[in-house]
């Protein structure tokens, strides 16, 4: 039985991980849809370019910090250093929340500069693209909250590394997606 199982599973990626990767491909297609529409629209009349708010730079730094924290959490989990895992997971969560706060701050700065949702179609795109990315981060934050609650609850004993690896992949993905979107919005405006 056991040897059969090993033959059967050797070198195979865990199905949930694979599902996540395909899901990431799907999310990428949605953003590809938005950014292509953005490029097409930009070449038409009545397009106003904009400068991104300073707060978005803070967002980027915070996102990087949270990715590092989660990377350390995963490492700690694999070494069964649960104390460190708990705190690093909590740090990721806090950084994630700060990311959302800096995003809100950024939108407030934009709004004050007259770059409002309806003023020009380029601004509308900015709000939709950045806003939907923030929603994806928010999805990650909800998962992190659930995982942190489990990690800090002494009665729950889960030693499966899969959920931690799944959230890591997703979280690094939304981080990289943010950097891509930021570069996109800076270079093509």
């Amino acid at each position, binding site marked *: 039985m056991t040897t059969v199982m090993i033959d059967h599973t050797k070198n*195979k990626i865990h199905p949930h991980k694979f599902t996540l990767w395909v899901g990431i491909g799907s999310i990428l297609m949605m953003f590809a849809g938005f950014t292509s529409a953005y490029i*097409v629209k930009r070449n038409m009349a009545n397009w106003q370019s904009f400068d991104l708010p300073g707060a978005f730079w803070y967002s980027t730094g915070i996102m990087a910090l949270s990715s590092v924290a989660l990377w350390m959490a995963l490492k700690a989990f694999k070494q069964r250093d649960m104390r460190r895992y708990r705190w690093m997971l909590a740090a990721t969560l806090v950084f994630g929340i700060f990311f959302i706060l800096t995003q809100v701050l950024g939108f407030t700065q934009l709004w004050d500069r007259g770059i409002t949702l309806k003023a020009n179609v380029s601004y509308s795109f900015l709000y939709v693209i950045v806003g939907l990315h923030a929603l994806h981060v928010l999805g990650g934050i909800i998962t992190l909250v659930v995982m942190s609650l489990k990690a800090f609850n002494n009665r729950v004993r889960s030693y499966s590394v899969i959920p931690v690896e799944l959230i890591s992949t997703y979280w690094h993905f939304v981080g990289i997606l943010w950097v891509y979107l930021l570069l996109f919005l800076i270079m093509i405006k």
Partner: protein
Amino acid sequence: MSTVITSQENAAVASYDLHHEHHHHETFISKYVFSMDHKTIAKQFLITGIIWAIIGGFFSVIFRLQLGYPESTFPWLEDILGHWAAGGKLRPEFYYALVTMHGTVLVFFVLTAGLSGTFANFLIPLQIGARDMASPLLNMMSYWFFFLASVIMMSSLFVQTGPASGGWTIYPPLSALGDASLGSKIGMDLWLVSMAMFIVSSLLGGLNYITTILNMRTKGMSMTRMPLTIWALFFTAVLGVLSFPVLLSGAILLLFDRNLGTSFFLSDIIVAGKILPNEGGSAILFQHLFWFLGHPEVYIILLPAMGMASEILSVNSRKPIFGYMAMVGSLFAITILAFLVWAHHMFVTGLNPFLGSVFVLLTLLIAVPSAIKVFNWLTTLWRGNIRFTPGMLFAIGFVSLFISGGLTGIFLGNSALDIHLHDTYFVIAHFHIVMGVASFFGMFAGVYHWFPKMFGKYLNNTLAYIHFWVTIVGAYLIFWPMHYEGLAGMPRRYYDFANWESFKMFGGLNEFISVVSMIVFAAQLLFVFNFFYSIFKGRKVTSQNPWEANTLEWTTPVRPGHGNWVGEIPEVHRWAYDYGKDGRDFIPQNVPIGEDETTH
């Protein structure tokens, strides 16, 4: 458990497999309602799809009544439809609502969810040798998101102003401006929300199908030993996962335009003498986003039917499928091309003619893999020992319709011809035959063929043969004449042609089409009766492998439980098409290769 397992990863996968073999005591709710068994979820998709098909089909009967008898009134219509048909005559606004909902329901709810949802769920684990999907939970959620989408879409039929009515393609500005028409009001919002739920459902399903096929195959089931149904369902899922998110992005932008005052798709519009403040948008942009999904959607509908037809043709010809690798290759080619041809729906939007010619070329290229498939189906039939089971008849019908409808695709793919034929009945005839009816035939073939596995009963054959002959003859009688109407310039989406001198001559023909469509609809009700009657009262299946087929689903018990196989999952030693080999009628996939036997 064991110390042999080396890495954490393997341990996780192994425990995951074990978990799948573990069974719980089930209650009625967990067994039939919130079930995680892929077979039950498949039946849920199928039955929901059938309900939608009756509703969508009935809509077409109602609007065909208007097209066939524009001058008459039918007092009973008012009894059914209320103020939609005040005085027994369908109101124009609701004619458009019915046409829109007919398209939406049949394209998305029946031929996407009802077809892929049913057969991907049912066949993937059974044919690749897995106990269930990679994630049964996501799978269950996929159905319930579809259910939610269904409830929302259904509720839009009952709002005061009626459901969406701007066509299933929901082009702005009709779809973006609440005041543009009755159907642009709350009905349109419900449409968009319902479709968002539907897209989530499709994505969850698609993710699962892809992962299951790539990760959960039994020992020996290499990719090139997979039945063609699985290949087709795999490419279908890839198309869905990559194209539906783009429609979602279009739908989100549309929701912003409708409810938050943005102008992605709106510019320089005057409604009732009032200039709207929206500026800078482009309605064409929506068409690009829509058709980037919309064209792959055609293949999302068609590929499962192709896969099932391939399997059924081979089983019932008692011959190996001709050109297995060519079949896989052509599915792959169609999948790639599906993403590169969307603008052929937009030749009349002022597209740069050079760009148009590029899309003409790419579109006509699809004829190559399509022709390969048709050639291989026909050569599979050629000199076969054919058994005309109802499933087989529908599979042959599928090939016939795919050829007839595919040929008119060559007309429409040429921009020079399309500019004349665009938005005429020629287009209606083309896509109904090649995508609508053909896929329905694939779906019927699948239902007739796998019904014994689904329910452990046979469908009634006499009713099935009546169903087949009425449907195939009826389908051609309905759509063949429409080609002539279209060539004569008769436009689609018109409520009443009696006011146009040039189309008056088609009055009799329209009446004829309407009568046939009602007969064909009645034949579908016969199928629905046969379906539900046979679940309870049908002849019991006693043999494990009633069609003498090679694929793994026929190695399970007659009515497999959750987990599919009792004991070990069978190991696979050969491809799925060893029919008529070495003097043996068929050799199932789990039979080891004999000593002096050659592999295909």
